[in-house]
C-alpha cells in the first residue's frame, strides 16, 4: 500500500529580494502531525523560507501540500487549504480588539457562527488570558499576550499546518517556555507544526526533526535528539 504523502514537501524552493537570493534551492518535508524546527542564525533564510511557502515572497520551485502542487496559489488560497502562518512580530491588527482579531482569524469559516463559536471556545480554553482581555485593543496587551493572540488567531483558521516565525522573540524566558509548551500540546493533538527559531533549546525538546539553515540553504538535517552529539551545533543551539 502506498504511504500517505507528507503534509508539506518543498522541492528546490528558492526566493530572492531583487538580485539577492535569500533562499537557495531548498528541499524539506513535514509529515502529518510532525513538529519540525528550522534553526539558523540571522540572515540564514529562515523567514524567507516561510514567506516563500505562503507566497508572501515570490519563489521558484515546488510546494506540495498533502501531495497537491500548490506552488501557484495565492496566499489567501493557501490559507483556505489549511496552511497558516504566524508572522515574526505577530502581525496583529493593532487597532482591533482581541475578539475582532480572533473573529478575523476565522474568516475562512464564512458566516458559520457555530463553527466560529466552537473555535473561539477552544482558543479561550488554551489561552484563558485572552478571554479576560477579549474587548481590549490588541496593541494594549503585553508581548506574551500578543503572541498568545497571534497563535489563537491562527488556530481560529482551522490550520492543518501551523508555521511560526520566531514566536519566542522578545519574550521573557518564562513566557516563551509557556508558548512553546502550548505548541507542544497542539502538536500532541495532531497538528503539524513548522517552527522557526534562532536559538531554541525548548523547541528542540519538542521537535522530531531539525533543519539548520546557513547562508540560505539547508546545512544539516537531523533528528532533534541527535543535535547534542554534534559538538558545534550543540554549543550554539543548546546553551
Amino acid at each position, binding site marked *: 500500500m502506498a504511504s500517505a504523502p507528507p503534509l508539506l514537501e518543498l522541492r528546490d524552493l528558492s526566493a530572492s529580494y531583487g538580485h539577492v537570493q535569500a533562499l537557495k534551492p531548498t528541499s524539506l518535508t513535514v509529515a502529518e502531525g510532525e513538529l519540525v524546527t528550522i534553526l539558523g542564525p540571522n540572515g540564514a533564510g529562515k523567514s524567507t523560507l516561510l514567506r516563500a511557502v505562503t507566497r*508572501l515572497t515570490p519563489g521558484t520551485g515546488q510546494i506540495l501540500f498533502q501531495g497537491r502542487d500548490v506552488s501557484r496559489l495565492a496566499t*489567501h488560497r493557501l490559507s483556505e487549504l489549511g496552511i497558516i502562518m504566524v508572522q515574526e512580530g505577530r502581525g496583529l*491588527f493593532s487597532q482591533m480588539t482581541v475578539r475582532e482579531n480572533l*473573529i478575523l482569524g476565522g*474568516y475562512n469559516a464564512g458566516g458559520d457562527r457555530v463553527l466560529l463559536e466552537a473555535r473561539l471556545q477552544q482558543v479561550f480554553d488554551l489561552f484563558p488570558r485572552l478571554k479576560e482581555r477579549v474587548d481590549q485593543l490588541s496593541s494594549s496587551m503585553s508581548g506574551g499576550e500578543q503572541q498568545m493572540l497571534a497563535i489563537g488567531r491562527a488556530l481560529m483558521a482551522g490550520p492543518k499546518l501551523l508555521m511560526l516565525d520566531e514566536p519566542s522573540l522578545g519574550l521573557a524566558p518564562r513566557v516563551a517556555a509557556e508558548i512553546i509548551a502550548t505548541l507542544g500540546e497542539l502538536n500532541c493533538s495532531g497538528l503539524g507544526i513548522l517552527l522557526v527559531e534562532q536559538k531554541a533549546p525548548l523547541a528542540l525538546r519538542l521537535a522530531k526533526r531539525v533543519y539548520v539553515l546557513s547562508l540560505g540553504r539547508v546545512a544539516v538535517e537531523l533528528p532533534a535528539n541527535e543535535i547534542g552529539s554534534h559538538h558545534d551545533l550543540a554549543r550554539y543551539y543548546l546553551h
Partner: protein
Amino acid sequence: MIDAVQLAQNLVNGFGLGLIYGLIGIGFCVIYNASGIVNFAQGVFVMLGGMVCHTLLSRLGLPISAAAVLTIPVVAVIGILMEILIVRPMWNRGASTFAIILATLATQMLIEQITLLTLGDQPRTYDSFTAGGPLKLGGVAISYQLFWVLGFGTLMVAGLWLFFTRSRMGRALRACSQNAEAAALLGIPVKRMLLASFALSAALGAIAGILVTPSQITAYNVGTPYGVNGFIAAIIGGFGSASGAVAGGLLLGILQAFAIVAFGAGFKNVAALTVLLIVLLVFPNGIFAGVKSLWARRT
C-alpha cells in the same frame, strides 16, 4: 453688523453643505481603511453622481428615483475601473503609497477632461427630490432637500458603522488596511477587498453628488472643491472614522458659513484651510482623537 437672520440662513446652508462634505469624507475613509491609500479622485465621484444623474433625467426622461438608483452602480463601475486600470497595476508592481496617491490625483484630472469633452462645460442642476418648499422658520428658509441630505447622511453613517464593525467584509476591509500581509495569511482576498473599497467609495461619492446637485450646481470641474473639502472633513474628524468625517464636515460647513457672513464669500476657503491648519497643529490625529486623549489624561 452681522444680520441674525442672514447668519442663521447661512448656518442652515452650511449645515447642509457640511453633511455633504462629511459624506465625501466617508468616501475617503473607506478606501483609506481598506488600503492606506488616500484617493484624491474622490471628488470626481461626486461630480459624476450629479452629472450622470442629470444626464439620465434630461436625456432619458427618467424619474429622479430611477435616475438616482441607476447612477449609483454606474459611478461604482467607474470606481472599479479606476482600481483595475490604475491602482492595481501599481500595487502589483510594489509602487509606494505616495506614488499611488499621485496617480489618483492624475486620474481626477483625466476624468474631469473626459467629462468636459463628452458632456460639455455647462453647469447643470435638477429639481429637489420633493416639490415645493422651502420651509420657513422665522426669516430662515430651509429647503426640503436639506432633509433628504440629513436623512441619507444619518443612514449612511449608521450603515457604514455597522458594516465596518459588525460585518465579515467590513472587518476584513479594516484588517487589510492595518496589515495586508496578515490579512492574506488568514484567507482574506486582499486584492478583492481593495476593489470592493473603490466600488463602495465611488457609490458613496455618487450618492453625495446626487443629493447635493439640486441645491448646488454641478459641472465637470466641481470635483476638486468637493474633494478638497471632503478631505479636510476627514482629516478634522480623524482620518479613517466615518462618524468623525461627518462631524468634521459639519464643523467645516458651519465655519465656512460663518466666515461668509462675517468676512465675505471670498473667505470661505480661507476659513476651511485655517481650520485644517489649526486642527493639524493642535490635534495631529484629528479633533476627536485629540479630545479623547485629553479627556483620558484628565480622568
